[in-house]
Structure formats: structure tokens, C-alpha cells
């Protein structure tokens, strides 16, 4: 086992988490879970940002994470509001049933 953890370890971890998030988005039909998966993906990206900030000794990575978190918060708020609104009309949050605007 290598004696110290370096940036590559974080890349690996981040990829795994990201992939899990991707799978969540693609496989689950529950819109809420779907959102959670998105959060997970954002989170894995954040992790990488911070890891690189540490690796390179620059603060910018952390600042970006800050923005990402802000956007994520906004996204969740809006997304969940959407889900609630959809649930009101369709009585379901199954993502596959939301195809009203199918072209």
C-alpha cells in the first residue's frame, strides 16, 4: 500500500461516486431519487475540486465548490418544487410517466 494518499486516490473515489450518481439518474424512476443522484454527482465533482485545490495549493478550487453548492441548492429547491407541482396533478412522481410534452 502506498504510504500516502495522493490526488489519484481522490480521482478514483470521485469517479466511483460519480458513476453511482449516473446510474441513479438513469436507472431509478423515482424523481426524488433522481435528484439525489444528481446531488451525488455534483458532490463527487466537488470532492475532486477540493482535492485539486489541495494538490495544487490554490484556493480557486474551493471557491468553485462554493458556487457549485449554491447552484445545487437552487437546483434542488426548484426541482423539488417541480416535483411537488407534478405530483399534485399526476399523483405520481414516476419519471417515466412525465411525458406529457412528448414530441
Amino acid at each position: 500500500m502506498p504510504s500516502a494518499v495522493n490526488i489519484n486516490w481522490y480521482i478514483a473515489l470521485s469517479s466511483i461516486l460519480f458513476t453511482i450518481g449516473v446510474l441513479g439518474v438513469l436507472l431509478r424512476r423515482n424523481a426524488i431519487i433522481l435528484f439525489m443522484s444528481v446531488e451525488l454527482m455534483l458532490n463527487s465533482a466537488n470532492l475532486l475540486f477540493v482535492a485539486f485545490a489541495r494538490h495544487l495549493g490554490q484556493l480557486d478550487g474551493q471557491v468553485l465548490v462554493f458556487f457549485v453548492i449554491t447552484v445545487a441548492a437552487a437546483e434542488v429547491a426548484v426541482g423539488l418544487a417541480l416535483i411537488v407541482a407534478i405530483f399534485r396533478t399526476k399523483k405520481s412522481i414516476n419519471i417515466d410517466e412525465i411525458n406529457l410534452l412528448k414530441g
Partner: protein
Amino acid sequence: MNTFNLAPLILILPVIGLLLNGLFGRRFVEANPANGERLTGWLASLMTIGAFLVSLSLFLSLLAHGFEPIIVPLFNWIDIPSADFLVNWAMQVDTLSVTMMLVVTGVGSLIHIYAIGYMHGDPDFSRFFTYLNLFIFFMLILVSGSSYLVMFVGWEGVGLCSYLLISFWWARLDKNGVPANANAGRKAMIMNRIGDFGVILAMILLFWTFGTLDYQAVFSGAVEMFEANHMVAFGGLSVPLPTVLTAVTALFLLGVTGKSAQIPLYTWLPDAMAGPTPVSALIHAATMVTAGVYLLVRSNVLYEIVRTSGATILGLISTPNLVAWVGALTAFFAALIAFSQNDIKKVLAYSTVSQLGFMVAAAGSGAYVAAMFHLVTHAFFKALLFLGSGSVIHGMEHGHHHLAHAGHGATHTDDDGFDPQDMRYMGGLRRRMPTTFIVYLIGSLALAGIIPLAGFWSKDEILLHDQTYATPIFIVLAIAALGTAFYVARQLIMVFFGKPRHAAAEHAAESPALMTTPLVVLAGLTVFGGLLNLPYLTRAMAEANHNHPAGIFLMLESWLEHSLASFELAEEGILALPRTPVYLSLLVAGISTALAVGGLLLGYLVYRGRPRTSSEPDRLARTPIWWWSVLPLNSLYMKGFVPLFNRFSVWLADKVDWAFWHDFVHDRVIRDIFVTGAEFSANVLDAQGVDGVVNGAGKTTQRLARGLRLTQTGYARTYALAVLLGAVGLLVYFLFMAG
């Protein structure tokens, strides 16, 4: 060969008994009531007898090995190196402890055997014997412990057993629906705990003074510091040794008044008669209640140092004198109270309190041997009397039972009020129960102090000592002795003489041999117990032996003085112990006999043929003596202090803690402050500031969303997949192709 290393056996045997009985006894008895009872009963008895035999062998070993105290260490108990606090589980085998062991296990064995008969048929038979063995175990720890703290284990342990056994029939309610037995047990335990308060504090003081709680180290340290006039310093205090020891001895006295039922804590003992009669005999007459006397005798060095130094409590009275006065007054008042009792066991209970007063008075005035002597003889005759009363009660119950079965019920409509322990329903039992009568008579006369029974010799020694050194106490004790003879006569007449005052008494039957045999043995001990410490019959004889014990004279003194360090120290001139005269004083013996006979005669004159019926009032009921005999201490506690405490406790709990502190302060004051703050920020800040902005922005976004919505088509998932595909594609492109 010595048998000292057998000493732990006296503790192990009762434990075996109690474990076996506690775990399996109930099953035995339920499986086969007759054999089960025999098995559990005899198992417990045999363990006690075994302990007795071991004590006997310890006795012989001590005889053979020059009486020197032996410490038998078991293992260490509390050991705090950084505080220099070390207490070991260790037994001290010396003449004093062996004396107590012999009394406890000897009388204990007899009472165990008796109880097999007495408790026959009780559903909780095995529980009873478990407790008895537990009691023997703790009592033996008490007397054999080599330090105050180990002694205290036994001290509290016997208190526990007393609690358990007094409330043995805890399911019973009395006529008023009060759980009298359970209450009595609780009262005993709490009263004892008040005494323990003193013992705990005394032990702590001893530790900080001497750095140890071992008897031998404490006593030798005390003498050393006393001789060197050391100051005691701890916790910012610095006081002379006698001051500390005054506090210690006074606190021990508090413990003694609790355990040995002296004024002001004696009130639990009469109530303790709610327990089964063998318990009254064993715990509340012969052994446990004498623990206080044992503590006084054990601590003789401390008391004698205080006496020698002349230290007093607030300049009023020195603690040994206080002890003597407490004992004497208890002896007097308890004897007086015994006049007015109608319950056969209550008379004996107050008599016990009174006799314990004699012992305490003796110990307080420095007559340690006399105190122990009286302790031993009292154990014999009082156990005899209690077991005898048990036999009487058993007989009365038998008679009552007989009536119910024989259909005599119609003529005895007052049976609801019948109480097999009430002497007013008895009378003329000497014909129905001859063996019981004879042994009871022997016990009673010994109690009254009739020569040559055991009680005479021991009481005489106490009186002689106080006549020599403390006349006021002598006078009080002498009056108490007169009173003793009087209530003895009253009891004998009411129980055994005259005509039966109730059909149950007419049909009472003698108890089985299992019960009477121990009675006969105890009667024998009562008759010959005086030989234990027979004084020289004349002054000349005493002087011929240089006032020292020899031959058959003063055996107990020659035996005990090896444990009483103050004797030796007195001879060295370090302590001023008043030595009891060693010869029979004709003056004191004469007075004592005259008082005993006079008291009996007086009793005979007053109660001859009385009462005639069970409802006739007592002949003394309208005299001042009767009024005096109701010492209002118990009422003060039960009607004054206890309700006050209850009310205070409820007030504190409901009003102060709950209504005020919990509900008002926390749920009103603190919460209101919080809620007010929260409402301000919610209504004022939030509603007007934030909401306005939000509403405006909402409208804009609504319009925007209308436009954006048009771009959405189909399944979300498809799009997501497309995005991913694109992302992965880009990734691969950049890595492998663009590079």
C-alpha cells in the same frame, strides 16, 4: 494444633445454607411439603450447628494458645493506594469475638431447630430459613470482623435481615387495612439507618485520625497519640485527640441507640414483634440487638481514653457517662412501659429494651465484663422467654383452631377480636402447657433476678459496679430492677395462673417436642449460666487471689480481659478504668434480691386473680404509673415527625420542584421569553421584508417558465442518457484522440 484457619468456615457454612435454601428450597417444599420442610429446616440448622462447632474449636484453640488475638485475613476489600486507605476482609479471632460467636451460633442453633417446628406449614418456609442463615452470616461478620468497616458490613447486614424478617409476612394487613408488618420492618431499618449515620461518621473520623480502621491499629494508635498528647489534623482541622474521640464515641452511641434500641431510637423494637417469634428470640432479643453492646465493649479503649482525659461534650457530660445515662434511663423507662403492655411479646420486647439498657449502662460505666456477662445470660433467658411465648402463642392458636373445628364457634361470637398474643385472653395455661410453664417460669425468675439463676449474677455485677462508682445510675437501675420483677410477675399471673379467660386458652395444647427441646436446653443454660462469671463469695477470698480471677471464679473476666485492652492499660496506669469489684457484696446482693422479691410480691398483690375477664381494665390503668409508662417518644415520631416529613416531602415535590421550578420557571418564564423573541422575528421581520420581494420575483419567473416549458419533450431519462453519452464520448475523445 490450632484451628484458626478454620475460622472462615463460620462464614462459609451459613452461606452454603442460604444459597441452597434460597435457590432450591422453594422447589423442595413445593415438591414434598413434609420432607421438603424437614430438608430445608435441618439444612439451615445444621449449617448453624456447624458454625457453632467451628466456634467451639476456635474457643479451644484460643484456650490452648494463650488467648492472643489472631487475625485471619481473607482478601483485600477497599484499597486506594493514593489515599492510603486499605481495608481488608479479615477476621479477628479473640476472646471477645469468640464469645459472641458462641452465643450467636449456640443460641442460633437452638432457635433454628425450634423454628422448624414453629414455622411448620408456612408457605414461605424456605424463605424463612434462607433469611435466618443470612442473618447468622451477617451476625458472624459483625462479631468476627477485624476492623470497624467489616464490622459495619455485618452491622448493616443484620439490619437488613431484621427488616426482611420483621416484614416476613408482608402480605398481611391488620384490622385497619394497614400493612403493619411491612411498616414495622421499614421502621426498624430506618431507625437503624439513623444510628448508622453515626457509625459511618465515626468511622470516617477514625480513619482521618489514625489512618486505618483496623481495631488493633486504631487502639494502639489511640493510646500512642493519647500518651504523646498529639493533635489530630485533617481537612483544615486541628484538634486534640480526646475531642475527636469524644465525637467518635458520641457518634458510636448514636449507632448503639439505633441497633440496641436505646432512647431515643428504641421505638422500632416493640414494632419488630410483628415478625415470627423465633425471629424475635434470635434477632430482637439474643443477638442482633446486642451488637450495640458489642460495639461499646469492642471500643472500650476509645471510651476509656475519653473518660481518662476528662473531655466532655460542650462541658456538660463525658461520653462514657452519657452512655451510662442513656442505658440507665432506657432501662428504667422501658421497664415502666412494659407495665402497660397486653401483648405477650410486647412485654418481652420492652423487657429486652430495658435489659439492653442495663448492658449499655454497664458498658458506659466501665463494667465491660459485666456488660458482656449480662449479654450472655440475657441471650439465654430472653431467648428462652421468647421461644416460650412462641410456644404459648402456638398453643393458643392451636386452641383457637380446635374451637373452630369442633364447632364451638356459636358460644364465642367475639372471636373476631381474638388475638393469640393478647395476655388478656390467656390465663391458667400452666395446666395445659406444663413444660412451657416450667421453662417460662425459670426464664422469668432469671429476668427478675432471683438467686441463683443466671440473671441474678449478671445483673448483680452491674449493680455492684455502679454502686461502687456511680451511685445515681445505681439508683435508677435498681428502680428498673424493681419494675422488672413487677412486670414479670404481672405477665406470669396473666398467662399461666388464674382461670382461662377465653375458650382458646381452655383448649390450648403443649407444643411439639421439636419446640420444647430447645426450651429445655435454654432453661438449663439459664439455671447454670451464672457460673460463667461467678464472683468470689467473700472479700477475703478475693484478696487471697490478689483480686484476680482464678479457678471457677470470674471465668468470663479472665477470658475477656485478653480482648479488653483497657484492662491492661489501666494496670499500667495509662487509663483510669474503674474495675468492677470481684467479690459478692452482701449489701448489693441483698438490695438486689430484696428488689426482685419485692417486685414479684407487689405484682402478685396487684394482679392476683386479675383480670377476671378479658375485657376488664388493668388494675393500674387509673394510676400515675400507667400514665408514665406511656413514654410519648413513639407518638412523637409517628404522629409528629413522620407526617411532618411526609407533608414536607409532598410540598417540596409537588409545589417547589414541580409546580414552581418545573412548570412555572421552566415552562412559563423561560419559554415565554423565547416565544416572544421568535414571534417578533417571524411577524415583523419576515412578513414585511422578505415576502414582498419574493412575490414580485415570482411573477417574473412564472412568465419565464412559460417560455421554457415549450422546449421540453418526451422522457427525461432519454435526455439524460444522451447527455451521458455525450460526456463519455467527449472524455474519450480528449484522452485518446486529441492528445
